[in-house]
C-alpha cells in the first residue's frame, strides 16, 4: 500500500539508483529528483525516487517504523 520507506542510495548508474532498505536492494529511477548522490536517502514511490530527505529525518523515520512493525 502507499507506504513510503526511506531508502539509502548505494549505487547510481545513469539515472537509475540501487537502493537499500534493511539489506533488501531494489532499483529506482532518479528522473524526478535532482542532485542525488550515493549515501543519500530518498523516498521511493512506485519505482521512482520522488524526494530526497536528510539523513537525520530518514533515520528517525526508520527507527519509528522498526518500533511500529517490530
Amino acid at each position, binding site marked *: *500500500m502507499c507506504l513510503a520507506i526511506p531508502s539509502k542510495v548505494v549505487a547510481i548508474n545513469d539515472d537509475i539508483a540501487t537502493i537499500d532498505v534493511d539489506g533488501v536492494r531494489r532499483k529506482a529511477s532518479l528522473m524526478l529528483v535532482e542532485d542525488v548522490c550515493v549515501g543519500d536517502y530518498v523516498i521511493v*514511490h512506485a519505482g521512482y525516487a520522488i524526494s530526497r530527505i536528510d539523513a537525520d529525518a530518514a533515520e528517525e*523515520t526508520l527507527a519509528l517504523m522498526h518500533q511500529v512493525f517490530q
Partner: protein
Amino acid sequence: MTQTRTIKISPITRIEGHAAIAIELDETGNVADSRVHFQAIRGFEKFVEGKPAEELPRIVTRICGICPWHHHLASNKAVDRCFGVTPPPAGQQLRELIHSIAHAEDKLLHFFFLAAADFVIGPDADYAVRNVIGVAKANPDLAKKVVQMRYKAKMMIEKFAGKAIHPVAAVTGGFAKAMTEEDRKWMLAEMREIYDFARFTMDFAKKDIFPKYMDAIASLGVINTGFIGTVDDHGALNLYDGKIRLMKSDGAYTDFDPGNYTDYIGEHVPSWSYGKFPYARFWNEGFSLDLEHPKGVYRSNTLARINVADHMATPAAQEELEEFRQAFGRPAQATLLYHYARLIEEVYACEHAIEMLEDPDITGSDVRAPVEPKAGRGVGCVEAPRGTLIHDYSTDENGMITRANMIVGTTHNLGPINMSVDQAARSLIRDGHVDEGILNKVEMAVRAYDP
C-alpha cells in the same frame, strides 16, 4: 494430466508498496480465484497510544510519506476536535491551500509517471520500454515539462510551509506561520502556471489518449459498486472539509458528519488478509466481494469523488464534469475512468488553489487559536488523493492519546481492487493462455486505483 496452477505477479510494477497478485487457475486453465495482497499498517494505532496528541500530526507523516500533508492535516483536525479548538479563518485557509497544492502535485505524478506508460506506450509493449524512460523517449519535451511542474508544486509547499516530506507547519489550533503579501503573489503566479499545464493535460488526454482506449475503458476491471467522497453544503466536491457522502451503485446517497463514521462504515478483516476492508455498514447487507452480487462494497479516490458530487465548485472543472457525465453517466462504473476523473480533479485543485490565493484574507495574521490539552474525542477527515482519510483519536485530561483508529484512503478500495483484478483475470485468461500483455492489463486494472 490436468492440474491447477497459480500465477503470481509480484511486486506489481509501478504500484507502490508490496502488493502482489495471485491468480489461481483451475484444471481447465480458467480462473478459479484471484487475490491481491497488500502490506498493511496495522500496529500503528497501538503505537501512538500514550503519546501527546499534539505530536501525532508530526508522527503520522513518517508512516505515510507518499501523501504526508494529507495525513498531517487529518491528524491536526482530529486533535483540534479532541481539544475543542477551532482554527481562525486564515489558519484554515492556509491548511486548505497546502492541501490543494499537494493534491495537484500528486495527480500530475500519477498520471504521467505511473499511468502514462500504459497509455502512451501501450499495454502490449515490451516491459523493457513500457516504463517512464520509454515515455520520456516517446515525448521528451512533455516529460521535461511534467518534471518541472511537479517540482514547482513541491517547491511552493517547501518554500512556504517547510519540509515537503515530513510536514510540521500545521499545528493544533491552526497554522504555524502567516502568509506574507509577497508569498501570496509569487505562489499565485506559480499556481497559474500549474493550472495552465493542468488544462493542457486534460485536453491532451481527451484528444490523444482516452479515445484510443475506449474499448479497454468499457471492459477492463469494470465492476458495479457504490462510492464515497466529501461534499460541501451545496453538494459540490470538496477535498478538504464537509460531509461524507456514501452513494449506492444506483445513485441513491446518504450524507453524514465524519464524526459519525462508525455508524456508516464497518471494518472487515477477511481470513486471508491482515488488511482491514472498510464496507458500508449502513446498507445493512453485510460484506461480499462477489462479482455479480457485491455487498457493502463502495469505492474511494478520484472516480468516487467525481461520482458523488452534484457539481464542481469551480468553472473549468464544472465544464469538464458536465462533458464527462454526458459521456459516462452518473455514477460512472468503468475502472479506467479513474484516470479521467483524476484529471478533472487536477483542474479543480489548481483552480481552487488560485481562488484561495486571490483572496487577500489569506494573509491574515491571526492563524492560530490558543490550545489547552484536554480529554475528548476528535475525528479528523480530509480527502487524500487515494480517498477519504479518517483519523479518530481519544485523549485523556492531559491530552495523551488513549485510543486511535485510522482509515487510510486506499483501504476503502482494497475490496474493489480485488474485484477488478478478478474481473480482469476472468475476462482475459482463457484455457491456460497467459502472456505478458494479459498480465499487464490485469495490473492496469489495479493501477487505475493508484493504491
